């Protein structure tokens, strides 16, 4: 049996040093709601666990000077929920994060873990993609930024380089009349994995959509940024014709699997339906801002 070591460093440099030195045997521990299950089932047998929750930057929620947010990769869903202003500015990101598992899971699970777990069905990811979030990653070669949609590489895989750790999400400042929303389709009301998930973020000016981003989950090997759907919404008054065009773009982007949760035909159709519903919620919220 391999000796398992547990480290809880208080600095990022220390964490990266240990994580990079241990190579593929090392795992990062944030909330642990995926890692502990994988260890228990024997799917993962780490030689080193690096707990990042003692690193201040990893657990901090910060409103930046320009009105954006910087959210540490290990911030729990419950901590984000309890933040006084985050949910007012990014209600879609918050509702997506708060759909991950039970209240018990939300007490631990983080958006950073959700992203790095690499599941195509991770609920927070389409909402972060729609939000235009940028992630900061740091490794032995230093710090760099990536668009959130560039992180997933396929089921269970990311484009982080060996030794790199996800540090934080940066959400941009919000213009007036902007908001976002996230909806997922599951066969029950709680505690399930998305069959389809759609995140929409948009800005309105005098009833016209001036900016939009659409993130689509659980219908391809990675979460998708659907630029054609956003293009169909931008410049429109979100009328039926624009919504139909954006819905078709979402359906066209789908490359889903066929499984017990949903067939290819079902997921493809639902992607379009959810786009319309999610856009309606985001638009309603935006017009109140």
């Amino acid at each position, binding site marked *: *049996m391999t*000796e*398992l*070591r*547990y480290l*809880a460093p208080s600095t990022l440099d220390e964490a990266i040093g240990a994580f990079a030195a241990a190579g593929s045997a090392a795992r990062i*521990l944030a*909330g*642990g*709601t995926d890692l*502990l*299950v994988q*260890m*228990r*089932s024997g799917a993962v047998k780490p030689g080193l*666990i690096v*707990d990042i*929750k003692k690193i201040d930057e990893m657990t901090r929620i910060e409103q930046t000077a320009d009105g954006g947010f910087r959210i540490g990769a290990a911030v*729990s869903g*419950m901590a984000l929920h309890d933040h006084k202003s985050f949910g007012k500015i990014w209600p879609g990101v918050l509702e997506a994060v708060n759909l991950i*598992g*039970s*209240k*018990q*899971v939300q*007490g*631990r699970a983080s958006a950073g873990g959700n992203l790095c777990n690499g599941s195509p069905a991770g609920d927070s990811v389409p909402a972060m993609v729609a939000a235009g979030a940028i992630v900061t990653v740091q490794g032995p070669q230093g710090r760099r930024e990536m668009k959130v949609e560039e992180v997933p590489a396929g089921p269970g895989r990311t484009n982080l380089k060996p030794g790199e750790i996800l540090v934080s999400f940066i959400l941009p400042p919000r213009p007036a009349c902007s908001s976002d929303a996230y909806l997922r389709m599951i066969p029950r*009301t*709680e*505690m399930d994995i998305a069959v389809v998930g759609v995140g929409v973020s948009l800005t309105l000016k005098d009833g016209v959509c001036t900016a939009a981003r659409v993130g689509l989950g659980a219908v391809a090997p990675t979460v998708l940024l659907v630029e054609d759907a956003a293009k169909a919404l931008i410049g429109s008054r979100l009328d039926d014709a624009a919504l139909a065009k954006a819905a078709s773009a979402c359906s066209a982007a789908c490359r889903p699997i066929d499984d017990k949760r949903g067939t290819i035909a079902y997921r493809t159709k639902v992607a379009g339906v959810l786009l319309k519903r999610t856009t309606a919620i985001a638009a309603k919220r935006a017009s109140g801002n």
Partner: protein
Amino acid sequence: MAKVHVTTTINGEPMEYLCEPNDTMLDALRGPLGLTGSKEGCASGDCGACSITLDDSLVCSCLMLAVEAEGRELRTIEGMAQGDKLHPLQQKFLEMAALQCGICTSGMLIASDALLRKNPRPSEEEVRFWLAGNLCRCTGYDKIVRAVMETAAEMREAAQ
């Protein structure tokens, strides 16, 4: 494997134990600490029978490493009653028969208590969503939800 020495606070009492780096908090509670009120149902964070609070945050102790408790404050079902005096939720669960086999009960109580500390006036919908991570195979949930609602109402009255 080298055992790790952990110093923590459980139900207000300083505690220490030795654990393996891959032991879960539930392993430590039910093993060296002898606190067997937290139950193992699924061991994968789905059933909530092992619910505890970690620095006032509701968590599944099966999804937490025992080494992570170092310097933290935990509360388990064993700390809920004050001596012989049951917590109002415990009393109400008994009165309203909100349990049958009892396996889920400690988790239900810890989760309900965490809800009422955060929100003393939950709606039925809020109670049902909050307890969605606590599975019960006996009661059909109705008695549990009603017991939590009733306790919340009585605790609000008592607080006035």
